[in-house]
């Protein structure tokens, strides 16, 4: 089987990160409790989540509405204070609505974590470079926005501490995963957001 990390649309692209996104996201998600609720931002981030946890009703995955994943995670975290909520998003999506980091910092729900999978490229549109490959640091922006618990992960052995922070932080937490730029195989997806919503609510609330 061809190495998915070497080819596809990302061939020849470079990033400062070296983590394998599928491996790093899976290890981080595996370290969290099984009942964590997950909002997966569109495109690559949703693929990472699906690859890590499978087709799971505790995941709401986006197929569009770019920029909304983090704010949706905030609404969910405020509505479900007894559950951990995790947003998994990409650098491109987070840059689109980066002010949400300030909104989350001010609301500061203790049960909300954000993982930003930063490959320094817009994979979905053909791997154009993003600002994070040209000097913008989203971890610094998260910190500057006022989020207290922030980690940048560049090595696999830093994932344990990041996972612990996501599990135990008593305020909003942010993890920037600096991953290599690659083009892993697409995961199967259901595009019907209404179906995802109803399934998520049925599992969580017992009603659609």
């Amino acid at each position: 089987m061809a190495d998915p990390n070497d080819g596809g649309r990302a061939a020849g692209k470079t990033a400062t990160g070296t983590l394998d996104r599928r491996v790093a996201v899976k290890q981080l998600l595996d370290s969290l409790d099984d009942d964590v609720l997950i909002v997966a931002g569109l495109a690559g981030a949703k693929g990472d989540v699906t690859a890590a946890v499978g087709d799971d009703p505790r995941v709401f995955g986006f197929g569009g509405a770019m920029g909304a994943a983090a704010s949706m995670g905030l609404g969910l975290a405020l509505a479900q204070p007894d559950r951990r909520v995790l947003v998994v998003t990409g650098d491109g999506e987070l840059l689109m609505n980066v002010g949400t980091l300030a909104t989350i910092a001010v609301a500061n729900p203790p049960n909300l974590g954000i993982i930003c999978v930063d490959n320094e490229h817009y994979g979905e549109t053909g791997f154009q470079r993003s600002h994070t490959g040209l000097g913008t640091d989203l971890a610094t922006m998260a910190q500057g926005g006022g989020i207290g618990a922030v980690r940048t992960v560049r090595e696999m052995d830093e994932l344990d501490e990041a996972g612990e922070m996501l599990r135990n932080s008593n305020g909003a937490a942010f993890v920037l995963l600096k991953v290599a730029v690659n083009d892993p195989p697409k995961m199967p997806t259901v595009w019907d957001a209404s179906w995802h919503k109803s399934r998520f609510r049925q599992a969580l609330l017992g009603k659609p």
Partner: protein
Amino acid sequence: MNEETWPEEIYGLLRENGIEQIAYVPDAGHDYLIKRSIADPEVHAVALTTEEEGVGLLAGAHLGGSRGVLLMQSSGVGNCINLLSLPRAGRFPFLTIISMRGDFGEGNPWQMPMGQSTQPVLEACDVTCLCIDSPDEVGRTINAAITTAFTSEMPVAVLLGQRLLGAKVFAKR
């Protein structure tokens, strides 16, 4: 309801109907509701940096079994357009209360383009618009909006017109 008490009537109806997340951007027209929600310990008053965050927030609230409302000015509607695909694609309830500018008696021409576009833009995005121009329409209209938003689970906007709010006063030249 008279001129002084209609904002409290809105607040009471929101709370009676289980609305727990009140998202806002700073706005003179919503000043009462914003202050009231910040002072209410049973409510999450969420300050946004841009109105579109409210669209995501309210969808997240619904995912978690809660209800929310987005308070914004008409100019903020333009910021929400793309994200309004979320309530439409997902059939999420969506309730927004909009204080109008660029409406009746506007004195700032910068407000006119978005003010005059507010209702057509919302309707183009499948958001049902209910307008309020006098205090005695407030209760009935807010109740209607809450029903359509949370029972029909459809996107609804209530437009508080400048006939109700009064146009902002600018110094005479």
